[in-house]
């Protein structure tokens, strides 16, 4: 492993000495359509000036590229820029010696950088309790609801009216099932969509300390009566065959595109896939909610990834990083990225530019995610950032599966998530207290 990285670094440094420009290594996890987007961004920046050259490298899925970066860092060969998913954010923040805050990078390089230009739900997520922005928001997504309009029509439902509340979802599902549909509803990223985003959407705490944003001593709160009610509701739907569990992470997405499942809650970043591959009319809608909950709907939480600057590089290279960030955050580049990928426009200026261009009118549904996010956030809805988050997500999967399988009641499973999650949070707090 180390040898391989050494070889790569050697090759990179040979290439470096051959050219006068300063190379900046960027490791990312974008594939297919989004991979082309990343390469085009680098190409655009490299063509716009002649001092620096951004070199994007695909390093596997989010967790793979993070593991590679850890190994590379330990061997002294980390890239300059690393794309890290939201789940890894707390881990990166805690690794103070491995990263350079993006605010510092911009200031040292003399680049203008205003965290207020960013949509608050986005910027807040990547900002330390001290108010310093630690990483550069890049591809942000959120949770939305997709439904199959053709299936709705066949079941006698109004295809132009998406079910906005959970009781309406259950009614629609019952009609779809009566019409012979085998999978009326499924959910992808169950922990993210049904617990995390669900909490923010209803303005209830997912964890204390502003869901972990305000400090490392946060503890889980997902066994509140509202959470229990929702998971119980889904469990009942599962029993009646209205909700069908199709697996962890984004695995269930395929069942929506294939037409097997008629409704799904998942990432707004799923839009590109649906647009390209769905052979039926589809609609996007805001995440369903419980209308009797005061304050709902609030806003949904952020997913996706941000760019981290790794420590231990030369000042000149950091200048290149800063210039690249300035380039990527210009409203024109931002807006073009948003239209192309379905990820959120992360600055207010980019959103306004996109709106002015008439894109949302031409592509109905693309503004759903944006509208869910650009609201005034509360302490309970700003975002969720927990230590050992990767493991907590897995705990959510494990416990929820036992509810869908009828082995545990909603209350038992949620209590278990709180108990097991808190153990991990305590451990994270302990491990990162010093430093």
């Amino acid at each position, binding site marked *: 492993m180390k040898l391989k990285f050494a070889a790569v670094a050697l090759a990179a440094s040979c290439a470096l000495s051959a050219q006068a420009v300063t190379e900046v290594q960027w490791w990312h996890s974008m594939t297919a359509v989004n991979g082309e987007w990343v390469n085009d961004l680098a190409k655009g920046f490299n063509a716009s000036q002649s001092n620096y050259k951004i070199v994007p490298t695909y390093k596997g899925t989010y*967790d793979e590229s*993070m*593991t590679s970066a*850890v190994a590379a*860092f*330990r061997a002294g060969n980390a890239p300059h820029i690393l794309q890290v998913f939201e789940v890894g954010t707390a*881990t*990166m923040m*805690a*690794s*103070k*010696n*491995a990263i350079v805050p993006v605010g510092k990078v911009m200031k040292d390089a003399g680049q203008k950088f205003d965290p207020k230009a960013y949509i608050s739900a986005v910027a807040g997520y990547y900002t330390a309790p001290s108010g310093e922005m630690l990483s550069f928001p890049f591809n942000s997504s959120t949770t939305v609801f997709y439904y199959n309009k053709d299936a709705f029509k066949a079941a006698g439902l109004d295809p132009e009216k998406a079910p906005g509340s959970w009781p309406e979802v259950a009614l629609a599902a019952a009609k779809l099932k009566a019409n012979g549909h085998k*999978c009326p509803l499924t959910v992808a990223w169950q922990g993210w969509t049904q617990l995390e985003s669900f909490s923010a959407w209803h303005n209830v705490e997912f964890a204390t300390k502003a869901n972990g944003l305000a400090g490392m001593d946060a503890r889980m709160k997902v066994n509140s009566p509202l959470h229990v009610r929702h998971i119980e509701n889904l469990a009942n739907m599962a029993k009646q065959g209205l909700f069908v*569990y*199709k*697996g*962890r992470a984004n695995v269930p997405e395929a*069942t929506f595109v294939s037409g*097997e499942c008629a409704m799904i809650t998942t990432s707004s970043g799923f839009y590109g896939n649906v647009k390209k591959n769905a052979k039926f009319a589809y609609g996007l809608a805001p995440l369903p909610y419980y209308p009797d909950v005061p304050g709902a709907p609030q806003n949904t939480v952020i997913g996706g990834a941000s760019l981290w600057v790794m420590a231990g590089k030369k000042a000149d290279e950091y200048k290149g990083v800063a210039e690249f960030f300035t380039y990527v955050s210009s409203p024109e580049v931002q807006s073009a990225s948003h239209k192309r990928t379905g990820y959120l426009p992360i600055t207010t200026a980019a959103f306004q530019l996109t709106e002015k261009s008439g894109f949302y009118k031409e592509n109905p549904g693309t503004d759903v995610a944006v509208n869910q996010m650009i609201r005034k956030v509360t302490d309970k809805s700003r975002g969720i950032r927990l230590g*050992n988050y*990767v*493991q907590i997500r*897995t705990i959510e*999967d*494990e*416990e929820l*599966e*036992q509810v*869908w*399988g009828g*082995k545990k009641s909603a209350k038992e499973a949620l209590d278990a998530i709180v108990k*097991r999650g808190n*153990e991990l949070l305590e*451990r994270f707090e*302990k*491990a*990162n207290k*010093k*430093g």
Partner: protein
Amino acid sequence: MEKRVFFRSAWLPWVLMAPQVAVIALFFFWPAAQALLQSVQQSDAFGTSVDWVGLDNFRNLWNDDTYLASFYTTAIFSTLVAVLGISVSLLLAVFADRIVKGALAYKTLLIWPYAVAPAVAGVLWLFMFAPSVGVVSYWLRALGIDWNHLLNGTHAMTLVVMAAVWKQISYNFLFFLAGLQSIPKSLIEAAAIDGARPWRRFWTMVFPLLSPTTFFLLVINMVYAFFDTFAIIDAATQGGPGKDTAILVYKVYFDGFKAMDMGGSAAQSVVLMVIVVALTVVQFRFVEKKVNY
């Protein structure tokens, strides 16, 4: 009677052993020492700050109910994999040994799966048994079995055991076949002349003569089930539903390589190492007594 070779030189045996010792030191002792070291440390993901935490990592494991439950899961999984893997391949080897025509084709086909990477094997079985699109789950549904390893723990366990056994059959098969072919034909023929039927010949002669091979494979298969199966689990079930297929080594892999909790992962691998060493000792002390060399 044990055979012993005596060297007159004092240093020659050491020199002859050196390459093997170097390989073992580099690929076994050094990583094992690293694991021991990391198991008493707690560090951030990038290893920039390292704290000595004594036995905290082990204490955390001990307090984790789900970790203790995965011992039970691991025991079931390993026993099934070892027993099924050995018996199925013994059966196949016995049949392949009797085949006269086209033996090479059968043997090649049986050895083939060994060349498949564990993760690929996991995905392959996952596809066949996928609840909505899998071929086999479609047949099962036709038979009235509602296959759903996403929510049914027994189904999930069956799936990973099948994938793990399938992957290991080739290896076992090769050894059994070689073992069978080294049994002198004259012995079998003599027994046949004495009137022993195939069933009896197998249990009173062939099986005991194969016992060194079987014992060797038992040890190897146990080690395989304990250590080498995480890729299959990761590809097929990710330890789910719940923790029904989360065997010990899968958690080592997950915590270390996905969640980047090096200390916790190292502590688990130390526990695993102790278990396997203990199991191997037990096997050599008690099972080996029944082996005829």
